[in-house]
């Protein structure tokens, strides 16, 4: 129990050896475990310094890429070295958390690439405030890393805020557009509310158990003799779960997602749909160990309801970004079924569900980032909308873009030989194996609705004639689009590799 408090009251080590923590901080394992955070933090500082140093005015792209590359490399190393628990057990860097880090860094990198390409008109604030934009992207990436690795509620909360506060600013980044401001304000208000709920829940939990460490809490709550049955603890867990469900945008906490997703700059949407969601699920899979197994049915019902609401919501949309936002809600529902399976089946099922969730989100990273990336290339630069009508006949004008979007859509729909299929297979298999036969079958069957609206987009692109007014789509700008095309190629390659040759990725999961 002391370990938890030390992490809380940073800088107040036991009196006996005031420097014990400093020596531990210098240990190689600790350094490696924190290396992704250190790399991202240093990148942020370098960017801030370079932005006011005329000599480094051209170094922005280099600094961002180098930061992300270093964070990627050290995360890979963590996967194989597995430094384990550091900082008195409040932060864990093992094989799984390293894989989560790879998803976060990949998400930030793809979002950054699409953001780079979206400065078509020079007056946009996205074009004139690039340095600030990049600082915010890297900070929120650091927040994700902190969230996924934390084994302590306070450290998690710090990560959550480090992720969220830059995101609030990023959502409102295109301040000349009212929808962007609305999106930022909405996300800020609801997000702070959710953060407060989470804090209140953890306070109740702390009051009931006297601990903030996830491992200790899991042990305490599993012990039938303990205070696990107290209403206070139940309420605490319930409030914290609700706050997490808000972050992953599932029913009934999903209403913000379509507005925020479609109002934000598209690159930020890509970051939120992939990175933020992955970070929240990474913690949710850890947090699930605390939940009582009776909660599994609640989570599974919420998951199924989310799939229904997300898919039906997407079915009536006429705007591609909003449709993708609803589809992202539906995907969160599928993953929540996986979490429910972990809650129901105990530690082994939870480990399997976590692996399935990792693969699912890795595939979703490439798929959703790619789809939002295509939207960022084609959408109306002033209003940020991309109607299905304007996509008509895209296959004639830009066959490769139409082709990659098709690939992303069929991966979202779960057709084999794409990463999206195997992700769904693994999640549904975990759900089935945890004994949830009916939820698995229902969840799979509901994907039919999803294919209905994905097909409508493909149909519009390939089978319908272009609308009368061809100026509805901005013409391709080959120079400015280059980073986005790189991003699209990476996404398409990722979707195909995870679908056709998933052996090595599954081997990484162990």
């Amino acid at each position, binding site marked *: 129990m002391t370990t938890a408090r030390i992490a809380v009251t940073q800088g107040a080590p036991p009196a006996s050896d005031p420097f014990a923590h400093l020596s531990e901080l210098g240990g190689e394992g600790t350094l490696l475990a924190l290396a992704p955070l250190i790399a991202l933090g240093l990148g942020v500082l370098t960017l801030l310094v370079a932005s006011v140093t005329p000599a480094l005015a051209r170094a922005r792209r280099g600094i961002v890429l180098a930061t992300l590359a270093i964070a990627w490399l050290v995360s890979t190393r963590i996967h194989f070295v597995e430094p384990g628990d550091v900082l008195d057990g409040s932060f864990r860097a093992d094989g799984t958390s390293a894989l989560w880090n790879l998803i976060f860094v990949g998400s930030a990198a793809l979002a950054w690439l699409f953001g780079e390409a979206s400065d078509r008109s020079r007056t946009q604030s996205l074009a004139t405030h690039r340095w600030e934009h990049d600082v915010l992207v890297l900070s929120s990436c650091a927040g994700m890393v902190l969230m996924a690795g934390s084994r302590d509620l306070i450290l998690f909360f710090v990560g959550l805020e480090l992720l969220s506060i830059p995101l609030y600013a990023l959502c409102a980044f295109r301040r000349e557009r009212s929808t962007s401001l609305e999106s930022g304000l909405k996300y800020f208000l609801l997000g702070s509310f959710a953060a407060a709920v989470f804090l209140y829940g953890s306070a109740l939990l702390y009051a009931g158990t006297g601990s903030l460490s996830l491992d200790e809490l899991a042990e305490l709550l599993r012990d039938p003799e303990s205070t696990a049955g107290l209403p206070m603890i139940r309420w605490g867990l319930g409030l914290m779960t609700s706050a997490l469900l808000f972050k992953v945008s599932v029913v009934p906490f999903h209403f913000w997602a379509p507005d925020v997703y479609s109002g934000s700059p598209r690159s930020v949407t890509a970051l939120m749909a992939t990175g933020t969601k992955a970070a929240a699920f990474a913690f949710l899979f850890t947090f699930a160990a605390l939940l009582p197994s009776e909660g599994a049915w609640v989570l599974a019902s919420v998951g199924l309801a989310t799939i229904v609401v997300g898919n039906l919501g997407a079915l009536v949309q006429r705007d591609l970004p909003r449709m993708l936002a609803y589809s992202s809600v539906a995907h969160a529902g599928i993953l929540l079924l996986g979490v429910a399976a972990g809650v129901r089946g105990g530690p082994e099922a939870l480990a*399997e569900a976590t*692996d*399935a969730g990792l693969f699912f989100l890795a595939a979703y990273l490439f798929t959703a980032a790619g789809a939002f990336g295509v939207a960022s290339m084609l959408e109306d630069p002033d209003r940020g909308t991309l109607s299905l009508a304007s996509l008509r006949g895209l296959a004639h004008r830009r066959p490769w873009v139409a082709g990659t979007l098709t690939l992303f859509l*069929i991966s979202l729909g779960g*057709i*084999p*030989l794409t990463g999206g*299929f195997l992700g769904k*297979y*693994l999640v*549904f*298999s*975990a759900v*089935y*194996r*945890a*004994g*949830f*036969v009916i939820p*698995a*079958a229902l969840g*799979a*069957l509901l*994907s*039919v609705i999803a*294919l*209905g609206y994905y*097909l*409508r987009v493909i*149909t519009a692109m*390939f*089978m*319908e004639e272009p609308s009368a007014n061809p100026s509805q789509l901005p013409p391709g700008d080959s120079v400015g689009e280059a980073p986005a095309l790189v991003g699209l190629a990476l996404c398409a390659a990722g979707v195909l590799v995870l679908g056709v040759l*998933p*052996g090595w990725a*599954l*081997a990484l999961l162990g």
Partner: protein
Amino acid sequence: MGLLLWITFLPLLGAGVILCLPRERAEWEGRIALGVSLLVAGLGLGLFFFGFDAGSAAFQHRVSVPWLRLPGASEAVHFSLGVDGLTLLLVTLTTFLMPIVLYSSTGHIRKRVRAFLVWMLVMETGMLGVFLATDLFLFYCFWEVSLIPLYFILGIWGGERRLYATIKFFLYTVAGSLLMLIAAIALVQATGTTDLALLAERAPTLAPGHQLWIFAGFAIAFAIKVPILPFHTWLADAHTEAPTSGSVVLAGVLLKLGTYGLLRFCIGLFPDAALEAAPVFLVLGGVGIVYGALLALAQSDLKRLVACSSVSHLGFVVLGLFALVPTGIEGSLLQMVNHGISTGLLFLLVGMVYERRHTRALDQFGGLASSMPVFAIAFVIAMLSSAGVPGLNGFAGEYLILLGTFEAAPWAAALGVSGVVLGAVYLLMATRRMLFGPIVHDANRGLPDLAPKEVLTLAPLLLLVVVIGVAPSLFVRPSRATVAAIDARLEAARARRGVAESAPSMEPGLDPAGSDEAEGAR
């Protein structure tokens, strides 16, 4: 050794080459596509005549490479292909039909020819993959992926209401596939393997109640694809809107994926459940025969008539399969090929007449025999083959099926026979309204007869109609050993049922929820 890899992936390779052709070389697209499909057809025929050991029930020419590991499976998923008695005929049929379809399309597909050829070749790879896959997971991948080319072919080159038909077809099939996916997860969880040969050993040992649930998941997916009665509504729309080549492939091969799946998975893996469910399928098959025939009788559009006759003919296949005796199953396998040939022929002929008149309404024709004699000859042969006249291919299959069905369920055979009669009625009526009588419409008077190219398209199929009709045993023999192996499993299941019925205390738990719960808890 690599023969099956070549057969399966040569079309895909050809599609890749066509995609890479520079725009100025567009005239090579068709030649490459045709050349590749002819090469594959050659390999397919070589496999049929020289490369297959009819005495063996095992998978032959097997290629197997470890692919990935799934949770719950003790063995890795393999990328494995193999051919056995069930698939040899279907593979040969597929490779045989493709060059004909591609050759026939050169005239009437005029827009976006390159994309059309690429999708056709990708579809060939997909269909061959479904037949040749000897791993459940790989089978599922090919099964789903083969939907996409047809989706594009229907949606881009189809008729007036093509978008409606396309989406209906896709969503129907995918709904079935997702049920199959859950059943596959359950099967992998229960047996620990995805290899079809190992599954054939392990799946029949599952408790009958458990089998029945997994069987149902697979059966609904395949029933939608076939289509068996309540699920048949997508077929008429898809056929009517598809371009001729799409219809030929759809009727010739894609529907056979469903009947093949019923045989390979539902009957081959779950004999106890198949025995349990056989009456349901016999009823659905028998009713489908009569209902499809009545539907065909009511059509005024020639293409819809042929499409509805497909429902009727596939009812025969289902009847033969679920008679669950070797004669019936062999007859069904032969009838799958027969249906592919005769319906393919009919669709090609409908396409040819549509090219000339731009209508398919039966009352717009009459007296074509005098203006288009060669067409009339081909049409009559195709109709007679479809009606099952002795000496042509349809007879052998239907006879074997009725023989087998009579053995198992005489009442179902009676339904089948009435279907034969009704079949003769609507086919002969259509023939009369098309070909004979006076020429009422002036437009029919000066119609040009079949061009040499069109005759060349039809000739191989017409030849095959006669060859199968005269020497059916040549085509039944290769499947005999594999069918016998399936029959042995069915016999074992019958014996188990007999024991269970005579000793009520040993009755297997039929409560499906209970066994699923137990399975999940493990």
